[in-house]
């Protein structure tokens, strides 16, 4: 019985006193994805680089309403 109480108290302590949920914040600010995709300056640089190497994706022969 004592053992169950102890486990219960430990869980309650963790929930109350440990800040944040270990599963929260996985879309971390530290990831390179996040750092780059939240920086307009970096994205402008990269999309310019891409524009130089990527061929056109839309035919110029499209005519009329789709």
């Amino acid at each position: 019985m004592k053992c169950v109480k102890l486990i219960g108290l430990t869980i309650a302590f963790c929930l109350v006193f440990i800040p944040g949920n270990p599963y929260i914040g996985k879309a971390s600010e530290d990831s390179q994805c996040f750092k780059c995709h939240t920086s307009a300056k970096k994205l402008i640089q990269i999309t310019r680089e891409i524009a130089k190497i990527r061929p056109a994706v839309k035919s110029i022969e499209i005519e009329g309403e789709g």
Partner: protein
Amino acid sequence: MEPLAPHEKIFVDSDILDDENHGEIACIDCHGGNPDDPDWKTAHKGVVKDPTYPDATDACGDCHDEISENYTKSLHIGLRPFRVKIKRRANTNAAILNKLECAMNNHCYECHSSCGQCHISRPNSVEGGFLDGHLFQKRPPMREVCTACHGSRIDREYFGESEGLLPSIHKEKYMKCEKCHTGEEMHGDGKDYADRYEVENGPKCVNCHKEIYDREAKNVITHRIHKERASCHVCHAQPYNNCSACHVGKDKNGLTYYKTKASWFDFKIGLNPLRSEKRPEEFVTLRHAPVNWETFDYYVEDGLSNYNASPTWKLATPHNIRRKTPQNSTCNACHGNEFLFLLEKDIEDNEKEANKVVIVQPDLIPRKQKWQPK
């Protein structure tokens, strides 16, 4: 709609971290790639741009299980009506059918949506780009999503963007698409419908306008007389957009293209090609679909050899509803008014046979009335 600048399309708003549901999911969980690699070229190896198409189970299914279960049968994903209608007209030769299927994969089936392409970004068919910095949109914005695709017909009709025509009264009442087209309808109910007008939870005018047949209602006599005779649109729609002669192919760079002839605004009442218990009306508004005998000739000649198997003037539900329209101003604005009806002379010679079930013979045009209800 103007496309976004390239960097705007992929800019992520850092507020996404505050999204208590989706902010908990790491980029890599849905999109793959390497979040630790500072070189964008190698970091993007294996990245999935839209992890919700063609299967949304992994990306959305854990939380939105029912929606993702029905997902592939939703009209916006499965596109079964396209397939059914083209196959109905198609040549039955297996080799020709294969080439048609290839053409449809290159063109028709490219025009789909996905969870992501409604709730996160603009659809790919309109060049994509995040709606609001990858913040999840519970209700897709109508102009960036809904009418971005449904542009040449619905957008121009609903917003009244054609000379001499008014916007829909529903637009003036600030109604958004979702008011009639609910999330349940958009997400599908698990049935693989062959025609969008079969969808059971699709919009019905009487869902809101319940009282029109009540004894005390305004115009009750007119509504009761025309119930099951004419669809609501016959009296309450304005002229709407018609398309024709879509041709598809690939240019010298291998890029797909379509070419359509000029569209035109018109208003034509015809016989209901989908008459059923659900749609019992004899007369409905009809719209010419963007198809013709040579649509797929780039891929295969005579692909649509059964062209006459399906009308090219199709049941239409124009999105420019008004309470008062020229045709409902008096009884005889419509009754006896040949100009409003789809007659044989309105149809091109090579489409007369296909449309015989919708053409109104002169003796079916309602006769002029001497009496007018008040």
